[in-house]
């Protein structure tokens, strides 16, 4: 079956969705009106309700509906009339938890998040030279509730916005019920889908160099989130790490998975992730990049 995917709204995410859909073997972007598609990805500001399933993009105002991430409930996703894609940051948190949960129960989650003021093209993006604590983000708070409910008993996210445009950078402290070995943590992160673990000593000292690497590799868009290996530590039973999250591109693979899992009953989340990443040429292991050196 080839899934006909309609795309509503034109923004930094939607134009990437079109390209990502076109790269998949089992879906095509549809030029038709939404009612003549199998599923619609909505990237407008307000939620869309149609007779066919709608994947609500990360920028859509939140309403009800399951929230999709790598930790989504497969059964809930299938044929759901409306699926909310989590924000890029919550998707990143989900990827990290997806990787770390096999190491043990997470008892508490704390994120000190640094958010870019906005994309370079956005005309109103806050102060040119200031840091601004943000005390609420309704969409992200909604997604966090979906992600952590019945999974992590306690969580807190502190947010600060600063004069910068590329990506968000977060410091996470994840408390586990059993203390893992650092080697196990690094191994788990390196296995995790859509997580790239790189080292500052290998030429990634700051976010600009991370961006430049992907530009130079011909994949200006990085669908992975980047974890600095030297930032990963185990401190009194907690995993501490820093992660770079590109805002426009992180949601793209999960949107593709949401489309596939909503429409095709025989596909598992893991299988969809593998299929999506192969089509998008997502490379997360440094060894895969370094092979060319």
């Amino acid at each position, binding site marked *: 079956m080839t899934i006909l995917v309609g795309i509503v709204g034109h923004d930094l995410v939607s134009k990437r969705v079109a390209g990502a859909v076109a790269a998949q073997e089992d879906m095509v972007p549809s030029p038709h009106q939404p009612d003549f598609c199998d599923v619609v990805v909505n990237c407008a500001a307000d939620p869309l309700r149609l007779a066919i399933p709608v994947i609500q993009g990360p920028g859509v105002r939140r309403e009800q509906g399951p929230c999709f991430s790598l930790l989504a409930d497969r059964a809930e996703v299938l044929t759901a009339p409306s699926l909310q894609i989590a924000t890029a940051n919550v998707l990143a948190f989900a990827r990290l938890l997806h990787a770390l949960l096999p190491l043990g129960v997470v008892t508490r989650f*704390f994120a*000190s998040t*640094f958010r870019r003021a906005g994309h370079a093209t956005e005309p109103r993006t*806050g*102060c040119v*030279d*200031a*840091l*601004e*604590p943000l*005390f609420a983000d309704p969409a992200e708070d909604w997604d966090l509730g979906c992600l952590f409910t019945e999974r992590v008993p*306690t969580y*807190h996210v*502190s947010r*600060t916005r*600063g*004069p*910068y*445009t*590329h990506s968000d*950078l977060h*410091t996470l*402290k994840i408390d586990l019920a059993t203390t893992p070995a650092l080697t196990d943590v690094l191994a788990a992160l390196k296995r995790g889908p859509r997580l790239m673990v790189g080292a*500052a000593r290998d030429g990634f*000292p*700051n*976010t*600009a*160099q991370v961006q430049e690497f992907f530009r130079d590799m011909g994949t200006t868009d990085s669908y992975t989130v980047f974890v*600095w290996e*030297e*930032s990963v*530590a185990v*401190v*009194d039973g*907690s995993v*501490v790490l*820093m992660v770079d999250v590109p805002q426009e591109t992180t949601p793209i693979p999960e949107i593709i998975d949401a489309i596939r899992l909503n429409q095709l009953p025989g596909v598992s989340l893991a299988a969809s992730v593998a299929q999506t990443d192969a089509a998008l040429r997502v490379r997360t292991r440094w060894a895969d990049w370094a092979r060319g050196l």
Partner: protein
Amino acid sequence: MRVARVGILGYGVIGKRLADAVRAQQDMELVGVAGPPASFSLRDAQLLGLPVFVTESPKPGDATASFCKVRGNLDQLAEQCEVLLDCTPSGVPVQYANLGRRHPHLVTIVQGGEKASSVEVSFNSFANYAEAAGKKRLRVISCSSTGVCRFVYTLDRAFGLRQAFISLFRRAADPGKRSKNPTNALSPVMGQSHHAPDVKTVLPHLNLYSVSLDCSTTFAHVLNFQADLRQSVETAEVLAALEAMPRVVVGEGLRTTADLAEHYRDLGRPRQDRPEIYVWKESVGATGTTVYATISVHMESITIPETIDCIRAALPFMGDHNWFSIRLTDQALGIAKAEACYRR
């Protein structure tokens, strides 16, 4: 009343502020300021009427040759002082280590950029005032570390602190300086940052971990805390403890670090300085035994009050009571809180 005779080496971001702070104290006298003869900051010192000394002989064209009436060299300044505040850039004080050997009477106080191992004691007014007595070479912990110290000290004293995790977002450069940070990038520090270990030089019993990154802004740092206490608390209790603490301002309604700078400019603070840490009231929350909060540190001025206290702490004749010194310093600098905040 006997006054402490104080000299300053390095009239830069910190040195010029300490010069003003020393002159504001009734029990201190500023003997002079010293620096490289080419430094235009010494021109400004001369304009403000401060006695100017130089670290080497001026050459034609040097700022001091053109603008200053040079009173002498560094040794001549040191001879007249009881305390020398070394405010030279990080790594430079070691070049002047022999000064103490040539002038054994001299107490030297360096700033937080120097290694703790290079001094007899690291200092914070609240944490370890008494340890400074009689020491000859001391160090005030760094700007961000001072901010962390004030916050965790407050929680520890009021409720007992089991552990704290601190995430710092630091300005890339002071307003007047160049930055090594790329214009549009964030530069994370790999592994634990120096701040928690720095605070533990004065509060060794605390369990702290810190991480930091640098970002392209100039006004101030922002710090996020997750603190686990030894007892359950309500948010109101945490706020009350912070509000009762000197050199801590709890405020709301000022959105950004730029807003803070404007606010303190409007208050008439010299150089729009804010030696106090600013706690965003909107950020403070307590859940059981855990407290979350966001604060701002003005890195150019936060260590000034602590350095003044360090002078008193090091000189035996000035008294050994830290709360006495803290109150005197704050009153002289115009940042004093209600009298009750200083009763211990």
